[in-house]
């Protein structure tokens, strides 16, 4: 009879300790994130594309880095450059820590966006920005994976066409886990705050 009683006591004390530490957690930081927390609601980073150097890449190539995934296209003169310019400002504010962050600009217009054009494009914004393109089916699968719909408008007489695309920026930790969702209208300081938190706490948490 002595052993079960001891065991029960041990379980009780563990539960109490756990309860206390949980309460402490909630008390100190009920919600540390300023952007939208998507942990557990979006799948891990997974892709099989070609980068702007013409190299085949997968999500494994970005393990160890925080990844900012954004869908766009180079013939988008207004919103895409605005978003990338804002991400550049965020990277500047992160200082040297930005070396642990990569901007992954995935083209939803692979017909026009060759690795060479993508390279010139992303390099004009930030040295830590990577342009990604690939087979149309692969890109479509990726956008569906993150529910980032896009569509190509009917072509015009001069051969030009326009593309609609999601404006969200999906943030993955160094282990490729989906963590946060930002929109271009979120203040840059919110993203700086959350990225610093992700960088400081490490990716495992």
């Amino acid at each position, binding site marked *: 009879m002595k052993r079960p009683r001891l065991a029960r006591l041990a379980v009780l004390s563990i539960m109490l300790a756990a309860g206390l530490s949980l309460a402490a957690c909630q008390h100190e930081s009920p919600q540390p994130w300023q952007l939208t927390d998507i942990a557990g609601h979006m799948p891990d980073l997974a892709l099989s594309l070609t980068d702007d150097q013409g190299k085949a890449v997968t999500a494994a190539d970005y393990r160890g880095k925080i990844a900012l995934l954004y869908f766009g296209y180079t*013939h988008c003169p*207004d919103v895409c450059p605005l978003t990338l*310019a804002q991400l550049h400002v965020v990277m500047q504010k992160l200082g040297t820590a930005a070396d642990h962050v990569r901007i992954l600009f995935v083209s939803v217009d692979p017909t026009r966006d060759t690795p060479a054009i993508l390279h010139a494009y992303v390099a004009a914004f930030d040295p830590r920005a990577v342009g990604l393109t690939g087979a149309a089916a692969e890109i479509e699968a990726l956008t569906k994976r993150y529910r980032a719909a896009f569509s190509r408008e009917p072509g015009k007489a001069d051969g030009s066409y326009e593309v609609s695309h999601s404006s969200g920026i999906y943030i993955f930790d160094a282990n490729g886990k989906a963590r946060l969702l930002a929109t271009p209208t979120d203040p840059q300081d919110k993203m700086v705050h959350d990225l610093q938190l992700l960088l400081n706490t490490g990716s495992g948490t």
Partner: protein
Amino acid sequence: MSMRCLLILLIVGMLPIANLHATQSSQVTASHAWIRLLPANLPASGYVNLHNAGASAATLVSAHSAVYASVMLHQSSMDAHGMNNMTAVAQMSIPAHGSASLAPAGYHLMLGQPSHPLKPGDTVDITLDFADGSQLPVSFLLRPANAADPE
């Protein structure tokens, strides 16, 4: 009365008439005109703040430039699902005694096919065309792709 006085009287007398027939462009002043320059001859975006000092609205209908073969008035918009769209628009109104802006993520001039290579720091002249046929030449400053706005 000297010839000079007569001339002044004549000009002063004509002022109300001139004002009555003021063109839209003569009432509008442009400021903070800039272009986000993109690499690889990709289409760029032109932005400008417009102020209308006139008593009636001015309507921007198009723009043209000797440097860019293609200049289109566009508008970016975002729907409830966060989808971004860019559409050509026929006109943009600048209210009487008010302002309107071509600014990132809103109205902008989509600029394509430059006649020669451009670099940040250069300026490009673009003429704004108004509904009454009047025109307003504006000098746009070229800024790098990753330029922040506001500066």
